[in-house]
């Protein structure tokens, strides 16, 4: 009961409400603009959060996360281009339905199912994060090592694209985390005599480079692309008939999204694809999918927004991000001196439940903004890339520079921009790099500390039941793509 009261705290703070309002609005704009999204937006706004107290800062980031994930649907329905990768599945039925003159109905369903999915996932977060945190008290260094390995193998298993390429990208992310002074012995690694590298490679330059700058290069290859925009008169709330058709789909996808979100991977993107395919599998009219099925929109949108709360579960309970955007939120927590994990639940419940409450309100706010303002947000896509991207470049450069006041960080950002472009071109996802980078120190640190505990005996890992369970799950995760590929062949 006390915790529920703590969740209501943001309602009674005008400052938090203002932050929520701004965050949701900003998140929606980011979501609507193709190529941007909550990950890039969160990374860019991270320096500004330094002027806020920790709760306001994290509330800002989480509201951007929730609203940004929904915002992608507006562009997906109206111009057949997902505003965020998580909205890719929404295009499949959203755009065909809009072409039939029912853009308002498509967006109405996207808005309602996103809100239901988002709220459902916050409930999951409120109930499961404390349980997971309680379990984490049993975790020592070997268990954390095994858990981090499990997280990385999950990238291969349920991430987008080739599993091996995902693993390479994840290993590369961990490798980046080894640059700089070794935290146990202070020996320089991969610094090549550059003083600025002794502190390591920062998270923000890598995120902004891999997401924003690589996208700028991608947009440079598409400058002659013409979008067919569909005019939107007004959003329509789903009819009784639509609700009858979709309520089971929305609930199922909300469950799927929350579960997928908990697993460290590409969060909403994978969740929406699975949510969509499951909606098709259970549908009475699967032949309508791809031609403007309202169930298809509900399945994809409920799942991708449900992944937001799900992804926050391991982030807050274990300090292991469930998606690229939660990796940014995790960085925000660390910057503000908040250490995620079981102690956070015991020592700062007001902080945690404030975040939960804020996520709940953000889901309601984006419903209101989306419902009344989708027409205006849709107009944002009219800003031409030749104006928009130079502006994003200016913000990216200043944002990256601002954290450490280091010009080297800006150059690193550009380097990762070019690298990210070529990675994406050849089918390597950039998300595992981010997850690998954030988990890198945990993986190496826990491995080395475990070996100290075990006196260098590697086999001792397998004498710990929890660690052993995670290793077995990792093996299953690695084998899963092979099994899936064989099944598809058959």
């Amino acid at each position, binding site marked *: 009961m006390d915790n529920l009261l703590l969740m209501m705290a943001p309602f009674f703070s005008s400052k938090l409400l203002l932050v929520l309002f701004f965050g949701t609005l900003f998140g929606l704009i980011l979501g609507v603009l193709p190529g941007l999204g909550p990950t890039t937006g969160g990374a860019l706004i991270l320096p500004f959060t330094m002027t806020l107290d920790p709760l306001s800062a994290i509330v800002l980031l989480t509201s951007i996360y929730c609203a940004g994930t929904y915002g992608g649907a507006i562009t997906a329905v109206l111009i057949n281009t997902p505003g965020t990768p998580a909205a890719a599945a929404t295009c499949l039925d959203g755009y065909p339905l809009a072409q039939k003159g029912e853009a308002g109905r498509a967006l109405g369903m996207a808005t309602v199912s996103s809100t239901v999915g988002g709220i459902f996932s916050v409930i999951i977060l409120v109930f499961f994060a404390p349980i997971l945190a309680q379990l984490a008290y049993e975790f020592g260094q070997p268990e954390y090592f095994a858990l981090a390995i499990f997280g990385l193998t999950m990238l291969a298993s349920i991430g987008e694209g080739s599993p091996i*390429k995902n693993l*390479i990208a994840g290993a590369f992310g961990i490798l980046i985390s080894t640059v700089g002074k070794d935290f146990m012995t202070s020996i320089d690694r991969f610094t090549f005599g550059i003083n600025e590298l002794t502190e390591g490679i920062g998270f923000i330059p890598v995120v902004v480079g891999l997401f924003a700058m690589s996208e700028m290069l991608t947009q440079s290859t598409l400058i002659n692309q013409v979008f067919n925009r569909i005019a939107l008169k007004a959003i329509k709330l789903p009819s009784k008939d639509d609700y009858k058709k979709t309520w089971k789909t929305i609930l199922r996808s909300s469950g799927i999204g929350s579960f997928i979100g908990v697993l460290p991977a590409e969060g909403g993107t994978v969740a929406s694809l699975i949510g969509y395919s499951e909606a098709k599998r259970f549908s009475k009219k699967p032949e309508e999918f791809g031609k403007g099925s309202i169930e298809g929109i509900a399945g994809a949108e409920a799942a991708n927004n449900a992944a937001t709360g799900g992804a926050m579960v391991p982030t807050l309970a274990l300090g292991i991000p469930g998606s690229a955007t939660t990796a940014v939120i995790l960085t925000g927590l660390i910057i503000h001196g908040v250490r995620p994990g079981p102690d956070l639940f015991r020592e700062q419940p007001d902080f945690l439940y404030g975040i939960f409450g804020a996520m709940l309100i953000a889901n309601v706010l984006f419903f209101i903004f989306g419902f009344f303002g989708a027409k205006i947000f849709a107009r944002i896509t009219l800003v031409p890339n030749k*104006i928009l991207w130079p502006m994003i470049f200016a913000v990216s450069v200043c944002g990256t520079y601002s954290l450490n006041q280091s010009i080297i960080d800006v150059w690193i950002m550009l380097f990762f921009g070019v690298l990210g472009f070529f990675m994406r071109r050849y*089918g390597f996802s950039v998300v595992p790099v981010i997850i690998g980078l954030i988990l890198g120190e945990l993986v190496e640190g826990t*491995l*080395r500390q475990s*070996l*100290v505990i075990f006196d260098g005996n590697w086999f001792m890992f397998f004498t710990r039941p929890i660690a052993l369970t995670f290793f077995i799950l990792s093996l299953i995760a690695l084998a899963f793509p092979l099994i899936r590929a064989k099944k598809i062949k058959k």
Partner: protein
Amino acid sequence: MKNVQKQKRANKSLPFFFRDEFKVSFVIIFISVALLITTFTFDIVPPILNRGIQPATFPKALLVLIIVMTLLIYYLATKNPWKVQKKLPKSFFLTLLSFFIFVVISKTLDFFLAISALSIFVSYYWGEKRIFYLLLVGIIFPVIVFVFFETILGLRFPPGIITNIYYS
């Protein structure tokens, strides 16, 4: 579907060293081997101070893993070639060039000037010819961002010909 198959066939008909899968695998392995060699130059911790493993061991293991997995994707690609990518347009290379110009100007002349130059350059080559919009993206917006960061975050930008005038 037919197009993908056509592209795959086209890729298969190229000599192996022109194929994307070879070029990508070669670059990854080449860089990984170079970095692996570098790890042998890392200082070695005396046994009394060493906790667990040597600082070079973990990166070495990662690099070996990357090399092995890259060989695996190359092997798989020989059976199932990657689709041929479209040629990159001129606008991509110009944007890439603008990044390089940005680095040069920010290092030698001025940080703000570098942002401004890149913005105008990119905007112009992406098709914006109207003076007002070029000024908007090249001067007005960077000034707003610059002042915003300077006043809200108390940021001090690196010295340069324009920044020095602003600070003086």
